[in-house]
């Protein structure tokens, strides 16, 4: 399993999760966990996904999500899980 963390930050609007999830489904990326909160009026979502069966390469997915974020008006980042687990777990 190749765990990847997708974060979405920006102004709340209708259909953010739907659009991101549609893209992930089309790309054969399985969602393992979703958590969402509002921080200082900002929509803040984190998804843990598995990219091992994805039908696109990592840099393509990353660029696609970046473009999708610009369309919706939010910032979407896509990072391998290790950068977080290394920093926050011994």
């Amino acid at each position: 399993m190749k765990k990847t963390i997708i974060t979405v930050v920006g102004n709340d609007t209708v259909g953010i999760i739907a659009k991101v999830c549609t893209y992930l489904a089309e790309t054969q990326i399985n969602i393992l966990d979703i958590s969402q909160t509002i921080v200082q009026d900002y929509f803040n979502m984190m998804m843990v996904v598995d990219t091992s069966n994805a039908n696109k390469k990592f840099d393509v997915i990353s660029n696609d999500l970046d473009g999708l974020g610009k369309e919706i008006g939010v910032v979407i980042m896509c990072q391998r899980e290790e950068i977080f687990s290394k920093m926050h777990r011994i």
Partner: protein
Amino acid sequence: MINIFEVNETNKMIQQENLDVRTITMGISLLDCASSNLEEVNNNIYNKITTVARDLVSTGQDIEKEFGIPIIHKRISITPISLIGASACKTSEDYVTIAKTLDRAAKAVGVNFIGGYSALVSKGMTKSDELLIRSIPQALACTDLICSSVNIGSTKTGINMDAVKLMGEIILETAECTKDINSIGCAKLVVLCNAPDDNPFMAGAFHGVTEADVIINVGVSGPGVVKHALEQVRGQNFEVLCETIKKTAFKITRVGQLVAQEASRRLGVPFGIIDLSLAPTPAIGDSVAEILEEMGLERVGAPGTTAALALLNDQVKKGGVMASSYVGGLSGAFIPVSEDQGMIDAVRLGALTIEKLEAMTCVCSVGLDMIAIPGDTPASTISGIIADEAAIGMINQKTTAVRLIPVIGKGVGDTVEFGGLLGYAPVMTVNPFDCSVFVNRGGRIPAPIHSFKN
């Protein structure tokens, strides 16, 4: 599983507090490139570097993209060239041809710097060492990416004062050769005492002869992250202050360890060390000086600065050591003047002098770094400053370095622009009293008594 707050904390460090990996440095041994034929040496060097480091830059970019962490520089360090060219180079001009080859190879693989145009002369100079040192001004003037260093002393050997004297002259000559571009050649030339073999940071990086054929060393950065963490503990006691620095250093270093392991795995090259240094940049909020000020100093340079820096340096090491399997290089806080906005401001306000910086170098890595001085400073005075720094390193068993830039045509109060990571600097006052009789004595200063440990 990782939670949203931890993810946000990491991304905030990267996006708002300038957390980055300063450099992935590939160390390459050129010992197998030596020959008595100069053309053959040049060909061997070019072929080895462009083969071994072919994928370094693209691998670095892939890691940046996948983990979302900027890797600012990709660099190469090589075996000190005075060793590789010893048999083939009969003149300084011969060495300059190797410098040009290195520059060409570095550009071909797309790295930001290549370090190791170096000589190790801590006890004595061979003929080839001297030829290389005398070629430095020309080599730095006709190349773009080469960094040069000369090790003139160590705790074990004492200080080679002949080399110290020569380096004062070489630094001035380098300034003269690059006077049209603010004497920038001197920003790529450092004089070291107790130089480490595995340092990933420029200008002092070289690949020591004790190292493997190829190795990956990583330098992390993140003064902004430490500064931000300290903002949360204002007014609290030293225990809390130290714990906060340690925890933050741990987190920063873990990112470096991850990047180093990934780079090592993808390139099929062994992982050497992580350098724990806090390296500032001229960007706002990426300053070591600001950390010291956050601890409670009005300006860096004020009384208490040396203690604050000692504390910072020690806690960064304590936090970082556990985060990495191998720690090496310089590992401490850097205090370059031109690369740190807080230092620049302090110099302008008169809070920070060369003498105070010298005191600070006793407790941190590395030395008098990126300091612009008047272009009419005598060579013997520069040698005197080098000797002082080397003495601090020799006696305290630590690395010290001098990277002074005598800016030709500029005097105290002028500002000099170097560009990019090198930043800009106000020209600082140098003590006007003479030390030439001392510097000109010749010979070497013996190793200190506490070096005899066998």
